[in-house]
């Protein structure tokens, strides 16, 4: 737990310190492919003209690599906390750290909107829900892992080793088709203007760009998800309600442990 807190503290300090590192890393403009998106540097020029406070930081270079390793370590450590801790609150705290680190990784993938949603929905709402349920249950675990015996452990270990080995073999042999295009920052996209405004260039992955896609081609799934959430809320209330409303307070296990 202490190690994890130190990791998060180090990530925060480096997160404040890295803009300097990232800016110190000059972006070689010659590497940028000429035919990418709407063409090279032109969209960047448009963006900085229309939004003078838009600071485009490319997620590449040594500073970005440092941040990636820090946040990857935080995410994996948090995930391991979830799987290994016997104390449920410690598991949830590891999960929150993991989600925050995953949000940072989303930011490196230029998914600004999704990163914010990850923080709000996962690290905020869902984890609070988990903490509430843990407070209701309020029961420490006696034996977190099922005893399977020596043969079961051997088979499980072999299976995990095989899975990790296959995965490593696949990922080692991944080659990018065109590294220069693949590693360049995505070009801003053009949105048709509304009303009298003309077409507008917005950053890729920002709220505006994702919203234009969400309320355009993705409108039906968006509406469907609202109905799904409504059904889930009604179903959760129907399931979690005490069966006999008269002795509802007596049946509450939290008050009489």
């Amino acid at each position: 737990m202490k190690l994890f807190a130190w990791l998060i503290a180090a990530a925060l300090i480096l997160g404040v310190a890295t803009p300097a590192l990232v800016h110190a890393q000059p972006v070689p403009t010659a590497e940028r492919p000429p035919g990418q998106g709407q063409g090279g540097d032109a969209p960047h020029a448009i963006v900085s003209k229309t939004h003078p406070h838009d600071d485009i930081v490319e997620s590449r270079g040594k500073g970005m690599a440092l941040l990636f390793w820090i946040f990857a370590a935080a995410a994996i450590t948090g995930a391991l906390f979830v799987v290994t801790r016997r104390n449920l609150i410690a598991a949830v705290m590891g999960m929150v750290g993991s989600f925050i680190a995953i949000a940072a990784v989303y930011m490196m993938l230029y998914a600004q909107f999704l990163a914010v949603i990850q923080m709000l929905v996962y690290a905020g709402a869902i984890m609070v829900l988990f903490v509430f349920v843990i407070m209701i249950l309020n029961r420490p675990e006696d034996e977190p892992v099922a005893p399977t015996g020596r043969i079961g452990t051997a088979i499980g270990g072999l299976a995990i080793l095989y899975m990790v080995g296959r995965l490593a073999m696949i990922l080692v042999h991944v080659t990018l088709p065109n590294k220069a295009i693949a590693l360049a920052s995505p070009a801003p996209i053009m949105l048709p203007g509304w009303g009298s405004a003309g077409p507008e260039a917005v950053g890729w992955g920002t709220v505006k760009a994702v919203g234009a896609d969400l309320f355009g081609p993705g409108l039906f799934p968006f509406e469907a998800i609202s109905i799904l959430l409504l059904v889930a809320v009604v179903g959760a209330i129907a399931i979690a309600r005490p069966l006999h409303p008269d002795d509802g307070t007596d049946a509450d296990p939290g008050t009489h442990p």
Partner: protein
Amino acid sequence: MNDLLFDVGYGHFLALAAVLFLIGVAGVLVRRNALIILMSVELMLNAANMTLLTFSRMWGDESALSAHTFALIVIGVAAAEACVGLAIVVAVFRGRRNVDVDKLTTLRH
């Protein structure tokens, strides 16, 4: 080795997502507490989302933003799943006073 350390590309993001997914799978398979199993499922959904966003950035054009919409919808489904799953956990705990999935054998014939 230097390339692997300093030249972070898509393989790194995919590998991170794969590792997170594997940890989630291990959590679902190994742990017996229903809450931990739900959290591991959330972890696996997050790993899948990270893969989606990595491939989306790999294409990097306007149509690739549909992956962001899809990831948003996956987050919504995960929220609904956590909601119903936790309600089931609470309901099971009401009746049986534990949430150990190895002891929930009522449906076994």
